[in-house]
């Protein structure tokens, strides 16, 4: 059986992090979200993947060129019109029943295996969710799908569609019919199939995670970091204390006096310390330098980041190549954030800083602040508002 993974989307609500890479390539415990999906698919015994790519496709293709034991065929979706449209691009590669997944939702291998083993022609993976109205809410009767409602206005139902299906290739007849009427969403096609009295079996997924907003990276990182095995290479100087599961990449040096409490993942070629403290659920990418007397907690620090001394960073995401000066403070707390005209209540959240920004000495950021890509924040600023990409704060 083949699997088709939809990975063409941009992820506008995850800006600034998606300005240079597609949403599926955002790192969770130093691994792109998409790699978790591909791993689960591979471990369920599938060896042939069709990947629908579009926005910043080079980043995906460049990364997966090294991926072993699985055949990946790339299909281009030039305009991201909808999930059914994405599927249609891969029609010629899909002659038999297949699995469809979205590349930006982490799913476990067992759930995929259950889906493969299910004998019925059509099946869907669903999941219970505390805020179903953001998703496609599903209504089920006797393990059969009855109705699927995209983003209902009122809170209704409690199960949502994970967007993961097993489908026969005859579905392309339906997709093509509806596409000619301008309907491009897979959920609408599925509803149409239900209405045509085809039976769609429902299976509950064990673990499924969605990433919609920048701070979701912290939550998902926290959930997935446990899966990384504790392995240490590189140089660890005398006088370093490490507790719990700590993973350290090759060519990394941890200088004396550092205190690291796992789960923590540190990439390759980093320099940490002396005397830096790194607390649970923190991921640090490759080639990052953390100078003396820093405290980092429950955060995602990407590649090439430079953090000067005496900074406090917690519940935050720091993008690739960003330089942070001395005495930086990302104040964590509760707030209401606005993204793409939506208001979101946040608990205990620090700062989100995009790629290649430069933050001066003594800067403090209020909870939930988003600083864009290639921004310059000069020293001793207190940041109380979001800063768009490429802006300078004097």
């Amino acid at each position, binding site marked *: 059986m083949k699997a088709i993974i939809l990975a063409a989307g941009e992820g506008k609500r995850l800006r600034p992090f998606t300005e*240079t890479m597609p949403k599926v390539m955002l790192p969770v415990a130093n691994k792109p979200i998409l790699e978790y999906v591909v791993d689960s698919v591979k471990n369920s015994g599938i060896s042939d993947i069709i990947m629908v*790519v579009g926005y910043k*496709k*080079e980043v*995906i*293709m*460049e990364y997966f*060129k*090294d991926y072993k034991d699985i055949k990946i065929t*790339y299909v281009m979706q030039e305009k991201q019109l909808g999930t059914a449209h994405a599927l249609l691009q891969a029609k010629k590669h899909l002659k038999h029943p297949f699995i469809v997944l979205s590349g930006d939702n982490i799913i476990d291998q067992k759930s995929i295996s259950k889906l493969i083993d299910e004998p019925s022609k059509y099946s869907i993976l669903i999941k219970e969710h505390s805020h179903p109205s953001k998703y496609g809410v599903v209504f089920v009767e006797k393990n059969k799908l009855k109705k699927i409602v995209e983003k209902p206005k009122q809170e209704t139902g409690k199960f949502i569609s994970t967007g993961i299906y097993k489908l026969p290739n005859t579905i392309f007849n339906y997709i093509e019919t509806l596409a000619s009427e301008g309907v491009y969403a897979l959920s609408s096609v599925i509803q149409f199939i239900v209405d045509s009295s085809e039976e769609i079996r429902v299976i509950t997924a064990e673990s499924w995670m969605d990433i919609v907003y920048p701070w979701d990276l912290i939550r998902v990182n926290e959930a997935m970091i446990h899966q990384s095995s504790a392995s240490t290479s590189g140089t660890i100087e005398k006088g370093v204390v490490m507790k719990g599961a700590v993973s350290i990449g090759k*060519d990394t*040096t941890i*200088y004396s006096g550092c205190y690291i409490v796992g789960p923590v993942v540190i990439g*390759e*070629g980093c*320099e940490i*310390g*002396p005397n830096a403290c790194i607390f649970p659920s923190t991921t640090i990418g*490759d*080639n990052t*330098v953390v*100078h003396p007397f820093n405290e980092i907690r429950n955060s995602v620090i990407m*590649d*090439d980041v*430079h953090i000067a001394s005496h900074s406090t960073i917690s519940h935050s995401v720091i993008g*690739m*190549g960003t*330089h942070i000066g001395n005495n930086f403070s990302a104040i964590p707390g509760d707030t209401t954030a606005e993204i793409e005209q939506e208001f979101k209540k946040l608990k205990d959240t620090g700062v989100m800083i995009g*790629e*290649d920004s430069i933050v001066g000495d003594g800067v403090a950021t209020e909870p939930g602040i988003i600083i864009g890509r*290639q921004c310059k924040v000069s020293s001793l600023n207190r940041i109380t508002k979001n800063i768009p990409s490429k802006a300078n704060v004097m």
Partner: protein
Amino acid sequence: MCGIIGYAGFRNAQSVLIECLKRLEYRGYDSAGVGIIDKKLSVCKEVGEISNLEKNIPTMKGTMGIGHTRWATRGKVSKENAHPQVSGNKKIAIIHNGIIENFQSLKEELQQKGHKFSSQTDSEIIAHVIEEEYADTLENAVCSALKKIKGSYALAVISEQEPEKIIGARNESPLVIGVGDNENFLASDITALLNYTNRVIYLDDGEIVVMTKNSIRVIDGKKKKLTKKEKIVNWDVKDAEKSGFDHFMLKEIYDQPESIRQLLRGRISEIEEKINFPERVESILGTEYDSIHIVACGTSFYAGLVGKYLIEQLTKIPVFVELASEFRYFGIKKDTSLVVAVTQSGETADTLAALREAKSAGCKTIVITNVIGSTATRIADAYILTQSGPEIGVAATKTFTSQILTLFLLALKEASVRKTLGPDEIYHYILQLKKLPSQVRKILDNIDEITAIAKHLKDAQSVFFIGRGIYYPLSLEGALKLKEISYIHAEGFASGELKHGPFSLLTKDTPVIAIVASDETYDKMITSIGEVKAREPPVIAIADEKDSEIEKHADFVLHFPSNGLPLSGISIAVILQLLAYHVAKLRGCSIDKPRNLAKSVTVD
């Protein structure tokens, strides 16, 4: 320079050979052919790229054979001159990369014995000599034939009398053995084989291999058996694919934030404020020498010229940059001098020869190369790998910036050994190095500015590049990039030299690209631009992003991110590469395979 491939195994030889040849196409692509033995020897050759051979080849059975992609050196491009070349009795087929020096006398000798030749190549002689020497086994025939042949070669030989066997031989041209299960390979370059195996045995000069699908035996010229170690190569085959980019060259330009990181990884320590090199390199740098000779060809030569400015500025040691093809014959090789060879492939024939000359004259030698296990790494006393990953586009891009950075690190290390820089100055440079990946990303991000300028250049007959200091060799490199892929005539000049001749070529239709750094030569550069403007050509300035004055002087401006002075050269190099690429693209040129050029030049 040509690509050769041999296969003995269980798969259909034709499809294996064609696929591997495609991966060797960068070494030459004017004609190609395969020879396969299925009881009888059959040979198929075509003029043009591998795809042309693939289109016209009949289906051939057989699981062993040889293949060749040619870059004409002796004899024009034609079907007869393509390889494999066969013997008079049509039983032996050979493929050859290199040059046979005594082919004329061998040819006359053989003609007297009644041999008839059907091509103008020197390679055909080899097949005939082997036929002449064939008494008992192919192995013995090849060994005695090689005693008669003078010159450089990587060779693969098959004969229908011994249909299991491929004999390979190497002298001054690259040849590697790929080790598989129940199949074995020969190739000019390991990247050709990575789809099948990453286990490799490197052959040395003068060695001969006798290979079947399940045995490999390496011998020397005196038929003594040698023990060779198998090595694992970490490159994946798909490394050599384009990852969604239109051309390898563009992909390799975009690789640079990563290739710079790979180069710096483990080599600089910000906390300890030091530069780390392999032990052998460090011990050579610790010795007393009074001058440095950098020897290289092409783009590597320009990287060497940049290196001269960097090393002299930071260490005060005099540096001489020499073209390898000249240095090998004419250069002064003193044992008090350190010779640094720069070669991407590690197989450039002239650079290898220069290295051998220098070594035998008692010089300490270091090579900067991208290819582990290449011949240069085995000749030199020590080597530094640029760790750029494979570069397939014929026009060098990421390896150029990596070579400059390697020379910069070398200068920093030497400066710390000789204490011409204090730890704080070194720390300052380390911080600047760390900023490079994000600065290159910033340039890649503002690609629209560059494509807009490319439109102004695409119809030019001739383009000049000018600069001072390290921006002079960068001007040379900018001109080289533009001419080699867009076929527009381009020249680089030190801007002080304009008035000593080149001025007479300036017209209002000759765009001038001026690299303007905010250093002590800034005012001089502005003066040069003024002089140029007086002849009315359009001036495109490449200037620091903080330079707000430059707009007044130039017609168009491309900005590079501010960084410490020598290191902004990396950003400028990337801008020049993108400019050349987009001009070539607008002109519809064959960017990855420019006419008459090949990636690594393994002939003199």
